[in-house]
């Protein structure tokens, strides 16, 4: 049994802005095993995309990342030199972005963009690289792959462009692929095809996949494990079934009860929601980050930052409540929501 492909411990990102410091990522620990899909879930501003960018070494220059370690197959890449990064990126770690129209270069043909990646990392002839590009385009379901090589990104549909992005990410057989909202810009029917494709490829190649998304439905369809983020912290981890089936953190619980599910929620039924807004991420924490939006908040929650508690192997929650969702009174949510509406 191999060790994990990716190990992130104590990741933190600070961004100095006008004299104060934003802390969009406070504490992130993450492990991805071979052939495993780990979904990082959270709403805008929770730090999920910055987490991905810092793993890829692609943070904006103003950001100050720090961590205990970020290990790729044992090698600490958090302090890798730009030279080393050029070798790692595209070869051993690859990224799939949300919007393939902006991630692909509009001025270069698909084939040239793909060949460039291969020739950057492998000593391979141009014709061999082209053959490999055609092979991968075919594998990700792009029809008539030979013809696509000479096309420009704008000549392809959104779904095809995303397939091209996936093929590019896989060219050098990376160990880890990070996909940031890979299907958010696509139509629902295309989304299902792309998710299926990602899953099939992962099963076949055994890559580790980090899937960043706000869509819990997508997560349910493809993830093995879920990492829920709120306010720059990991607030809950567990297998897909554990987190979706029996959420422990009130934030996860709140998210799940606010999504209408045809066949479960009745038409026009009042949906749950999480009162309040995401707090601004600056300064150090003096209490639980979810305190003000939590219907179950107790006096202890204001006492200081809450540490993540390990419930079982791979199952953790950053909450002081007893880890028993059944013991909670869902009526508290309704009361809390009514107060919000009244105020």
């Amino acid at each position: 049994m191999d060790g994990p492909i990716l190990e992130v411990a104590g990741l933190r990102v600070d961004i100095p802005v006008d004299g104060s410091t934003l802390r969009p990522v406070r504490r992130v620990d993450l492990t991805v095993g071979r052939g495993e899909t780990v979904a990082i879930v959270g709403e805008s501003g929770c730090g999920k995309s910055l987490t991905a960018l810092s793993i890829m070494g692609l943070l904006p220059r103003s950001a100050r990342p720090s961590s205990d370690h970020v290990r790729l197959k044992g090698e600490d890449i958090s302090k890798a030199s730009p030279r080393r990064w050029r070798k790692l990126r595209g070869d051993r770690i690859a990224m799939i972005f949300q919007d393939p129209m902006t991630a692909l270069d509009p001025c270069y043909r698909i084939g040239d963009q793909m060949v460039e990646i291969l020739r950057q990392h492998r000593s391979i002839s141009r014709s061999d690289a082209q053959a490999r590009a055609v092979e991968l385009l075919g594998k990700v379901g792009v029809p008539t792959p030979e013809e696509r090589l000479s096309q420009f990104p704008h000549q392809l549909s959104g779904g095809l462009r995303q397939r091209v992005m996936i093929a590019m990410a896989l060219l050098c057989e990376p160990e880890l692929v990070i996909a940031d909202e890979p299907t958010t810009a696509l139509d629902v029917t295309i989304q299902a095809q792309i998710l299926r494709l990602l899953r099939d490829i992962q099963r076949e190649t055994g890559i580790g996949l980090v899937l960043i998304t706000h869509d819990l439905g997508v997560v349910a369809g493809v993830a093995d494990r879920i990492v829920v983020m709120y306010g720059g912290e990991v607030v809950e981890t567990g297998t897909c079934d554990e987190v979706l089936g029996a959420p422990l953190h009130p934030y996860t619980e709140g998210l799940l009860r606010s999504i209408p599910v045809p066949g479960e929620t009745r038409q026009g039924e009042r949906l749950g929601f999480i009162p309040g807004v995401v707090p601004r991420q600056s300064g150090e924490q003096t209490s639980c980050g979810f305190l003000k939006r939590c219907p179950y908040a107790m006096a202890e929650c204001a006492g200081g930052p809450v540490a993540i508690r390990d419930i079982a192997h791979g199952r953790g929650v950053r909450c002081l409540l007893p880890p028993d969702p059944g013991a909670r009174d869902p009526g508290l949510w309704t009361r809390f929501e009514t107060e919000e509406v009244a105020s």
Partner: protein
Amino acid sequence: MTSDALIMRGVTRDYPVGTAFGRKQTLRALRGIDLTVGKGRTLGLVGESGCGKSTLAKILLGVEQASSGEVLVEGRPISGYGRLERAGLIQPVFQDPYSSLNPRMTVETLIAAPLAVRGIGDSALRRRRAREMAALVGLPDHLVSSYPSQLSGGQRQRVAIARALIGEPRILICDEPTSALDVSVQSQILNLLHRLKSELDLTMILISHNLAVVHHLADEVAVMYLGQIVESGPSAEVFARPRHPYTEALLKAVLPPRAGVRLPELGLEAEFPSPLRPPSGCAFHPRCRVADGLCAERAPERDGTNHSFRCHHPLGGGDQAAAMTTPETA
């Protein structure tokens, strides 16, 4: 007939498109839309990008004109209304509250703008109405003098809704009203729209790619594919027993956030066709799992009355209900 808020009969919309070699082509965005929305009803309009749903919304808002066919609003042709009169009757709520609100105006001014444009009341009255609207959509009173940049996404969308409703329109056109919002906020806006439509007896057109949202709010649903309505009917009926294979695929594509959900097999392999070159016969046939020779040759006529569909081989119903009610479990 006067009980219908909106009637569309045979509405088409063509756009001339130039090609690289100067040949003129016609993009047929709408290919004969027949649609009726009763007063106080909510119609959900679903379909993939490029199916013409936004063109349809633009025609209803009077931003675009139909190339042929007839659009009746409260019994009168839409072209018979003046611009301001139409604006008093039909109002839009757009997808992105970040770009649809002028960043230099306060919430109060933004909400009162439709009244100011139509010259209704003096500024004191308009301000009072704006505050009433803010309260109606659940915006705290202290926010009325803020600027959009000081608001959260959900609050901005409330401003957009308040602005749409201040002139007491009869019809609200919501184009992806929650797509730009976070999940925990989306539900608040859905609750709000649901409350307002019954409180104010609004007729609503809800355009969304999110079928769960449409299922939640719409009384009726119309499924569009390449400029045509391929299936329409009472939403409970269509969701439980889709007759068109495309509707079935859309329903299957909904991923509920539940443990043990499996990725659906949609059986849609080909890509969405270019509206410049719609396929022969039934426009859906290249992607359809039940298509045969007939489908490639002849376009299907509309069938059924209350729950209607355009398909040579409609699905039987019954077993399809499974697509929506019990997600496949592993």
